[in-house]
């Protein structure tokens, strides 16, 4: 049973965190990271060859973290697999006890270490969400063939309130929900004002009532990181005030300040109508998740 | 030491270059003999890359293109177009081992005293004494390997 689903359905503020698999075949590398997250979040996202860099498969890493008692969220991008492989992976994931999946487009191959690879994109993320929903609820695959046993999946999708065009973002969110998304994790938030504006549009369309929305947060490690994200990562909105704020503290205090900002963001998220939880993405800084969750008053996680 | 010039130059020029009528052309060809070949054009923009290459292939150690001053092209863009084509032609000849200095663009700055065709011709012919023969016409040494490739 999906822990995330249980927590959300109970009405409690949910916490998810992210775990990136290693660029190698060592299972210990996954276990070590996962141990840092034990008890700090309800369910753990495992990324899928993020930034198009070859890493241990999300499915394998999910299986490893499950073996130490965590509840994995399988992230799947449509960049690398055709519909045969995607549907097959959903069946496989369900068979080994994975109960959460997030359906994503995926970063373009150009950004990673295999820019010469073909991008599959047989399905897009929305078609993939619908595919998983039909497999789960109607026990059938694309084309209509029946499944011997339906997979059991809590279906998630991503939303980016900071990409353009702003007004269309909620239309697309609506499509993801109509296609079958049960929960949404947003891109990490630095511009709260813009995020609240987006949430207003979300509420206007009643989408918060149809789906659980978790706001994404990522702690800053340095002013350089903030600047990099502002200038080099598509779909990110990092206000100048945050960079100034990070620059205003001495180097030894950067991480502390980054965590402070993150906690403040979570406190604000808790007050926003329609937000059901937070998704903490502490990239290559999994130790910070515990501290952030603690300071934001999110611990201990409920046992349901 | 032989001072006689054995280089051949090709000069393509726009007919709007001052004092560039047929009589001037004939008198220049008479004066310089085989060392110069003059090609009048209705506009420098009519010159294509293939013309420049054919000149280098067939007889020219060096090619000059004389255009109207910037902003004064009667067809508005001709002198801009030939400038870009010469750039491309230079990279083509470089890729086969011919020095890009063998293709030259002369575009006077507007407002300069109007230089006549004969003045240009005299100037480039004088500079040509320092010019080495084009590698296209050098007899390749017997059993020579391939020329150095970029």
């Amino acid at each position, binding site marked *: 049973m999906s822990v995330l689903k249980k927590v959300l359905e109970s009405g409690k503020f949910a916490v998810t965190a992210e775990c990136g698999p290693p660029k190698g075949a060592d299972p210990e590398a996954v276990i070590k990271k996962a141990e840092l997250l034990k008890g700090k979040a309800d369910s753990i996202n495992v990324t899928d060859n993020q930034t198009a860099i070859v890493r241990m498969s999300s499915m394998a890493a999910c299986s490893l973290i499950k073996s130490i008692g965590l509840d994995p969220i399988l992230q799947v991008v449509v*960049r690398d697999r055709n*519909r045969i492989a995607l549907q097959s992976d959903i069946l496989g994931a369900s068979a080994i006890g994975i109960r959460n999946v997030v359906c994503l*487009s*995926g*970063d*373009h191959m*150009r950004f990673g270490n295999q820019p010469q690879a073909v*991008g599959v*994109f*047989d*399905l*897009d*993320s*929305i*078609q993939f969400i*619908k*595919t998983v929903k039909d497999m789960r609820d109607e026990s059938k695959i*694309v084309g209509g063939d029946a499944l011997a046993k339906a997979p059991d999946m809590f279906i998630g999708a*991503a*939303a*980016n309130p900071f*990409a*353009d*065009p702003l007004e*269309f973002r909620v*239309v*697309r969110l609506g*499509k993801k929900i*109509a*296609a079958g998304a049960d929960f949404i994790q947003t*891109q990490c938030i630095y511009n709260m004002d813009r995020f609240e504006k987006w949430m207003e549009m979300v509420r206007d369309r009643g989408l918060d009532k149809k789906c659980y929305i978790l706001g994404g947060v990522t702690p800053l490690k340095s002013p350089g990181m903030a600047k990099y994200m502002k200038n080099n990562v*598509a*779909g990110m909105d990092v206000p100048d005030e945050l960079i100034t704020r990070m620059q205003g503290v001495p180097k030894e205090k950067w991480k502390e300040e980054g965590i402070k900002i993150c906690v403040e963001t979570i406190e604000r998220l808790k007050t926003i109508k329609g937000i059901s939880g937070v998704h903490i993405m502490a990239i290559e800084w999994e130790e910070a998740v515990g501290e952030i969750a603690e300071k934001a008053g999110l611990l201990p996680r409920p046992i349901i | 030491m032989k001072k006689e010039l054995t280089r051949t130059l090709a000069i393509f020029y726009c007919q709007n270059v001052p004092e560039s009528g047929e009589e001037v052309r004939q008198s220049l060809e008479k004066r310089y003999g085989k060392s110069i070949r003059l090609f009048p054009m209705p506009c420098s923009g009519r010159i*294509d*890359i*293939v013309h420049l*290459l*054919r000149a*280098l*292939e067939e007889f020219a150690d060096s090619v000059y293109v004389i255009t109207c001053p910037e902003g004064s092209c009667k067809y508005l863009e001709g002198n801009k177009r030939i400038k870009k084509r010469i750039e491309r*032609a230079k990279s*083509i*000849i470089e*890729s*086969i*081992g*011919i020095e890009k200095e063998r293709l030259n663009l002369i575009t006077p700055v507007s407002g300069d005293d109007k230089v006549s065709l004969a003045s240009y011709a005299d100037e480039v012919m004088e500079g040509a004494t320092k010019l080495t023969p084009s*590698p*296209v016409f*050098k007899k*390749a*040494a*017997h*059993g*020579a*390997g*391939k*020329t150095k*490739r*970029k």
Partner: protein
Amino acid sequence: MITAEQKPMDEIRDMIAPYKKILTVGCASCVAECAAGGEKETGALASALRMACKMAGDEKIIHEKTLDRQCVKDFVIQLDEVIKDYDAILSLGCGAGVQAVAEMYNEIPVIPALNTEFLGETRDQGLWIENCLGCGDCMLYTFGGVCPLARCSKQLMNGPCGGSQDGRCEVDPDVPCAWQNIIDRLSSFKALDRLDTIYPPKDWSKKRGAGPRKIVREDQKR
């Protein structure tokens, strides 16, 4: 049209190296339009190759001829009268043209001088843009005349993705976000609600479902 660009000179020289009598064949259609293989470019390439050979002491005969189209048998056949004089053809046709010539004269090697690229339009002088994938199942009406498969880097049919910023694609700031274009275009037709539909998975079998495709028209046959 089909676009292409000339291969690097060294690569062309390597391929023609073993041959003594080469006919350089241009094409006056698509590749002339994109300034890669038309009569002028064919003349320029042949001239450059002759100069290169001369400088290397390599006695090759290199002639040139430009056909109206290289992808149509009735035009290619014009080479019949001259072909016996050559031991290789250097073709400045697109991939389709090179192969059509090779089919006709399959005893002599046909060497491609171009890298064929994409189906596209001449957007502006000196600028060609890919806009069609040849999917065999055109949806351009639905998407307001902007193809999400050819012009979206991720081929999304229910776009845009989260990387769309300021109307630019995350892959390259010079690439417009096709989905921004689609949204703008449909908005101007007051048809934005067309995007409320969840477009189902594409039938890719129309593109390569049974291997290389062909079209047969009985009414067009002899």
